[in-house]
């Protein structure tokens, strides 16, 4: 069975202090396959970190299921433990994630000890820690064994975290904002390391980020989240050069130095997940609806909820009434359906399995 981690219709709910239910994940389908880099992007509050945590079993879904190599993830400690060896989470904020009183050696060896991976016949613990540190680009590893996190630079700390994950020889890495707290110059180094691990070890990587430039740099596929759901997903080149969903278009237009696009600055922030808008969840902020471009489907946008976007590892799909209407119009499909900036939309991959 291939190393494939998937979420199917996953819902996660939190009850707020006032008793209201916040739907942090409101039905999400996602597949991460071995050997691919998938970027999960969205604003704060979109649910991307919750989805990542659910995929490694740190958050229990209220509905839906997570599968690892085809098997549904149970709730038992045993099945979770196997998953947590194979699928490693690399947290954001390396200074906060490393124990300040543990040396680099202890931080990296911790996982090996928990999972009792050091056997009498295999390589020793020291050898495995050294191998993990050098795989993360920290050479010579011995020089760092006895250092503490405060003695390291930001880039080195991030590499130590990655080494801690690699020590367990996982098949999948989930990295939550791996470079957001790092300097510009170190950012590229860490991203290059992620690509190298994919290349050399065949790791699958799910990168959670709000940075579309990062996705363009390293991701094969991209999934865009908004308010607990994935609203657009597909190959990175297609999604970022021909975005279908008005939300993706807006996100892309505000990336600095995107001077070929007129910035579409959305007002306000992601709504409160205790009060998800009816109809399309994006409609109160949707620029296409506000400009009148979506007038033909406005009743659907306001009143009809969209189905969960099915995970499709090959195609380019988006959850939008306007896109659906354009695709169903044959003339538009072959011809040149225009987005609201007057640029032709690329519908290749739409609906293809």
């Amino acid at each position, binding site marked *: 069975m291939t190393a494939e981690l998937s979420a199917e219709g996953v819902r996660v709910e939190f009850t707020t202090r006032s008793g209201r239910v916040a739907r942090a994940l409101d039905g999400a389908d996602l597949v991460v396959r071995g050997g691919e880099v998938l970027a999960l992007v969205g604003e704060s509050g979109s649910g991307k970190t919750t989805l990542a945590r659910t995929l490694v079993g740190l958050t229990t879904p209220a509905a839906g299921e997570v599968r690892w190599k085809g098997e549904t993830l149970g709730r038992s400690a045993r099945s979770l433990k196997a998953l947590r060896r194979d699928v490693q989470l690399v947290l954001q904020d390396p200074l906060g994630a490393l124990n300040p009183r543990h040396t680099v050696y202890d931080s990296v060896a911790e996982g090996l000890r928990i999972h009792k991976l050091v056997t009498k016949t295999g390589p020793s613990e020291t050898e495995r820690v050294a191998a993990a540190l050098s795989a993360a680009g920290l050479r010579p590893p011995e020089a760092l064994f006895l250092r503490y996190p405060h003695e390291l630079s930001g880039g080195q700390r991030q590499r130590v975290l990655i080494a801690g994950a690699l020590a367990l020889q996982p098949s999948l890495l989930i990295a939550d904002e791996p470079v957001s707290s790092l300097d510009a110059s170190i950012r590229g180094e860490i991203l*290059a390391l992620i690509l190298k691990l994919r290349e050399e070890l065949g790791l699958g990587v799910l990168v959670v980020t709000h940075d579309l430039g990062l996705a363009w*740099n390293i991701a094969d596929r991209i999934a865009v989240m908004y308010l607990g759901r994935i609203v657009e997903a597909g190959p990175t080149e297609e999604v970022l050069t021909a975005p279908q969903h008005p939300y993706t278009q807006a*996100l892309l237009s505000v990336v600095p130095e995107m001077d070929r696009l007129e910035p579409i600055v959305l007002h306000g922030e992601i709504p409160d997940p205790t009060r998800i808008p009816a109809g399309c969840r994006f409609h109160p902020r949707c620029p296409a609806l506000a400009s009148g471009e979506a007038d033909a489907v406005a009743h659907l946008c306001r009143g009809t909820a969209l189905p969960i976007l099915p995970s499709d590892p090959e195609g380019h799909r988006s959850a939008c009434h306007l896109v659906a209407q354009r695709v169903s119009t044959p003339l538009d499909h072959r011809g040149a359906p225009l987005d609201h900036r007057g640029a032709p939309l690329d519908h290749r991959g739409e609906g293809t399995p």
Partner: protein
Amino acid sequence: MSAATGSGLPEARGAARLLDIRDLHVTYATGEGGLPAVRGVDLTVERGQIVGVAGESGCGKSTLASTILRLQPPSATVTGQVLFDGSDILTMRWGALRAVRWAGASIVFQGALHSLNPVHRIGRQIAEPIETHLPSLSESRRTARVGELLEQVGLDPDRARSYPHQLSGGQKQRVMIAMALACDPHLVVADEPTTALDVMVQAQVLGVLSDLVRDREVGMLMISHDLSVLADLCDKITVMYAGRVVESGPAKQVFAGPLHPYAGALSAAFPRVGDPAARFAPAGLPGDPPDPRNLTQGCSFAPRCARAAEECLPAEPPLETYDDGRQAACVRIDRTHRSSSGVETPSVETHRSSSGVETPSVEPVENPGETP
């Protein structure tokens, strides 16, 4: 707010530059000797202009920001001049300095999310500098002013009654900006104002800042490690490395066609979405920033520089002037190629498509060959 402009500042408007930093050196005293954080920086900001300062952690950019308002720690030794409207902030009497802070120039600190007092309503926190600098203003006028400021940064005036924990990160950042504007300053220093924010909120906050500069003719010094944000917003960019200016010039040109290899590395770190050259090719800069206590002889960037050669080692390269008011401190720049348009940038081949102004075609690209 006519009252704010006449707050006892040395009135030399129009004659002198708004901010003119000359040969500024800041050295921190540490247990192991002096730590030179800023080493001879010259920088100017005019009214209605946004100047960006870029560089990585430890390059001295935040020290520079705090020294402008003489907020550097007492252990720091400062030489040089910081001329604000013609008078030197570094030698100013305490009373005059107090008048300059907030009313003449204000600062938006980085990590603003933690800079608000959690137990006071934000309206009261915004009113505080107004109360100090314009004690004659009646309470109702002050409340009206707070509402006005909140509206200016795109928040509902009713938000004055909220506590910081009731606001999101972007809203808190706007409150910090409103506070910096409370006394109608002529200069705003913004230290990483959008670093902790999402792209969409960042776009909102940057929009507020640029409207402000355009509408009210304030000058702004914006500090960031993200050259792409600065290129979007600023008129001029200054790139710092190890306490020195290594490149400065018009923002778009510095970002699109950097002269100094370090500026090139910063520029390439943030790829242009849609640029085929950046696909699966994240550009980084190996090595760590130098320890200011043990700077190597010669160019301090040489140990990390792909173009370093024998000629970089004898002495620190001086900041030389090129066409279009551009400056760079590198002896390896090919002087024969220094025309204004097609500057042969030192780092082009590894990073970005030359002068970068040519964007990757306007239509959504089909990307032949890249998608199955």
